[in-house]
C-alpha cells in the first residue's frame, strides 16, 4: 500500500470512529444552564404570550358571553348617565358656584344687597328685575361658608330676607339674614 493510501485510510477510519464525550460533559453543561438567571418579568411575559388551547362547551360559551355582556352594560352605564337631581353642576373655571338671591318688592325702583361677603358696601350688588314683576334676582359667587346680608330698597330702606334660613341680631338694633353656602359636591 502506498503511503498516500495509508494516510487516507487512517483519516477515513478516524472519521468513522464514534465520538465519545467525556463523562463530565453533560454535568458541566447542565450546571452552566442552571446558572443562567432569567428575569422574573421575562418569565412572566413568556407565560402570558405562550399560546394555549382553550376548550369550551357551547353552554359554557353562552354563559361566558352573557357574563361579558352584563359587565359591559354595567360599565358603560356607570360612565354615562346624568347627575343626581340635587347635585350642583361643577364649574369649569375656578370661580365658586353662584348663589341666587331673590327678593320680592313690586314697589321698589332699585334693590341692592350687601353683606360681610361684600365688606358691607351698600352699593356692592344690584339685583335685577328683568321682567318688571317686582321679583328681584342676583347671582353671587360665594365660597362655602356662612354669611350675613341684607337688601337695600331704593337706596334707603334696609330689609332682611324673609326667605333666609335665619335672621340674627346685628348688635345695632337691626337684623341680618343668614345664608349657608355649602360645598358643591361631597365625596
Amino acid at each position, binding site marked *: 500500500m502506498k503511503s498516500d493510501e495509508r494516510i487516507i485510510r487512517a483519516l477515513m477510519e478516524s472519521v468513522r470512529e464514534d465520538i465519545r464525550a467525556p463523562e463530565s460533559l453533560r454535568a458541566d453543561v447542565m450546571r452552566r444552564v442552571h446558572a443562567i438567571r432569567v428575569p422574573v418579568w421575562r418569565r412572566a411575559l413568556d407565560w402570558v404570550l405562550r399560546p394555549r388551547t382553550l376548550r369550551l362547551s357551547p353552554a359554557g360559551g353562552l354563559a361566558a358571553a352573557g357574563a361579558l355582556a352584563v359587565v359591559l352594560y354595567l360599565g358603560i352605564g356607570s360612565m354615562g348617565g346624568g347627575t343626581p337631581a340635587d347635585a350642583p353642576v361643577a364649574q369649569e373655571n375656578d370661580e365658586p358656584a353662584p348663589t341666587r338671591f331673590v327678593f320680592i318688592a313690586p314697589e321698589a325702583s332699585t334693590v341692592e344687597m350687601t353683606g360681610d361677603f361684600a*365688606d358691607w358696601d351698600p352699593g356692592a350688588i344690584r339685583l335685577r328685575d328683568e321682567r318688571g314683576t317686582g321679583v328681584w334676582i342676583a347671582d353671587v359667587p360665594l365660597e362655602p*361658608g*356662612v354669611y350675613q346680608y341684607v337688601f337695600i330698597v331704593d337706596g334707603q330702606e334696609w330689609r332682611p330676607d324673609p326667605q333666609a334660613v335665619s335672621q340674627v341680631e346685628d348688635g345695632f338694633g337691626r337684623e341680618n339674614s343668614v345664608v*349657608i353656602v355649602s360645598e358643591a359636591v361631597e365625596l
Partner: protein
Amino acid sequence: MNRVSLGSRLGRLVMAVGLVMAAGLAIPESVTAQDPDFESRVPPEVLSVVRPVLQQASADGLPVSALQAKVLEGMAKRVPAQRIGEVVAGLAGEFRAVRAGLQEQLPSVALTDPELVAAAMASRQGVPTDALARVWQSRPDASTMEVPVTVLGELVRRGVPIPDAVGVMSHVVNSRVPMNVAAQIPGRFDGARGPDTPPGAALGQALRMLNIPDPPIRGKGRGPGG
C-alpha cells in the same frame, strides 16, 4: 490731622443697626400688623375707637376679619362710632368666651376663624358650650364644623330641645352627611313644623325628607320627635 478711628465708628454703626433690629422684633405684632386697606376705609373717629380692640384681638388670635366686618357694617348702617366700638368689643368677648369654653372641654381642638364665628353665633342662639363640644367630638375627621354648628344653632333657636338638636347634629357629622344636605335641615324643619307638630317631630320629618337616617335612639328610648 486727627486720626479717624474707623473701627470704633464701624462698631457703633453695627451696634446701632442691631439695636434697631432688636427693637423691631420686640414691638408686639398687634401694633405692627396694621391693615392699610381696612384702615383706609375707616374714618379717624371710628378708627380711634376700634383700633385698640382690633389690636388686642389680633394679639389674642381672634378672628380679626370678622371684627373688621362688624366695623364696616356699623359704618354702612351709619351707627355712631362709640356704639360700633362697643359692639365690636362685645363680639371679641364672645369669641374669647366660646373659645375658652370649647378648649376647656376639648384641649386639643384647633378652631378655625369661621368655626369660632359660627360657634359664637350658636352660643348667642342658646347653645351651651358643652353641647357644642359634644357635637365637635363626633367629628370623624378634620372637616370644618362651620355649617354643622350653624345648623345646630338654628335648630335650638327654633325651639328644638337641645338634646335632640345635639343628637341629630352629632349623628349628621359622624355619618358624614353632605353639608349641602345638612344645610337644608332648618328649612325642611320649617316646612314640617305646624301648630300641632312638636319641634322634635318636625325635626324627625325633616330628616326623613332629606333621606338622613334616623340617629341612634337617645337614652330615653326614643329618637327626635317620638
